């Protein structure tokens, strides 16, 4: 009876499809960002070390430092996208447990906690990126004087929420196991 609930419930069905779509969508972009980042970085390095060996990545108006800057942005973006992809992979797995039967299992508490950890990491990355950009502008662009960090407190808030939910889930799953032990 409950094996068919996943197919019958439109919200769970769309949720699962949406999570899976975002998972692979973000993964593709993570890979693209990583590949382009590595390529630009390598080209930039070569140009710095041996300027005449390859055709220049930067035209005359663009200093090499800016090219490496783009690579640095991609180097931050790629892991962030990969982590976001993992977030939705975990969500899809949680929804899938409904189809398998009982969603109140310790594994789902672990998945929720994993989603919380990812949110926390994304917050840390955005914080580090904000500081990095500030440091960059201090060196290369003297017009910027204020430190504006776009690190969203949203992801920190989200992390706390997910940790709480994970704890509630673990609590319930442990109670369930206790009950099953006594029956």
């Amino acid at each position: 009876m409950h094996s068919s609930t996943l197919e019958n419930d439109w919200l769970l069905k769309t949720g699962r499809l949406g999570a899976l779509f975002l998972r692979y969508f973000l993964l593709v972009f993570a890979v693209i960002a990583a590949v382009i980042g590595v390529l630009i970085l390598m080209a930039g390095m070569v140009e710095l070390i041996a300027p005449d060996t390859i055709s220049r990545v930067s035209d005359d108006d663009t200093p090499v430092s800016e090219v490496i800057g783009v690579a640095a942005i991609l180097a931050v973006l790629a892991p962030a996208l990969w982590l976001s992809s993992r977030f939705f992979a975990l969500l899809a797995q949680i929804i899938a447990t409904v189809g398998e039967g009982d969603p109140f299992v310790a594994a789902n508490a672990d998945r929720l906690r994993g989603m919380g950890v990812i949110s926390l990491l994304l917050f840390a990355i955005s914080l580090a990126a904000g500081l990095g950009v500030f440091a960059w502008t201090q060196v290369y662009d003297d017009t910027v004087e204020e430190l504006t960090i776009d690190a969203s407190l949203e992801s920190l808030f989200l992390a706390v929420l997910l940790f709480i939910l994970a704890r509630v889930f673990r609590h319930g799953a442990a109670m369930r196991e206790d009950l099953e032990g006594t029956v």
Partner: protein
Amino acid sequence: MRISNETATLYVPVQLAAALLALLFAVGSAFMLWLALDTLGETATASGTYRAFVTSFQPVVGLSQALGISLEAADFVSRLFLVAMLAAIAAFFVQLGLLVNAARMGAPFSRANAGRLAWMGWSLILAFGVCEGLVAILFADPTFDQWAIIGLLTLMGFVFLVLAKVFRHGVALAEDLEGTV
């Protein structure tokens, strides 16, 4: 039960924080409502600075033209969105507190908690998807973030709705099992 001592240390501060935040946003919402009602009053509309603000503030002018209402009425409507947003955030924290309270009392997996998760999801969607995102797009209001409509918190609202459904199915399954035992 062996886990209850460990979890109680987490639940109590979370409950306190949720209650405090709920109170804060509820007071904020009430204050904004008072402010919105106050600007409808004669003293505010008669004041020159208010007049200058309303006639120059593009979102209010746009809204007034779109709905064919006076500038003061448009200003009032746009303020109500902020009131609704703060109220929705307050409702979110109220539900979070109740959810954690139910867990502390030893009933984390219940129909009521599934409902609370759904409420939390709808509050997030209302606060950030509708009030922030939609308003920003409709009224081209620069004080709201247009991207909020597909922002992290709106997305999380939908994630909460899905988690609520997961809860509901788990509870239904447990009730089935209890019926058969």
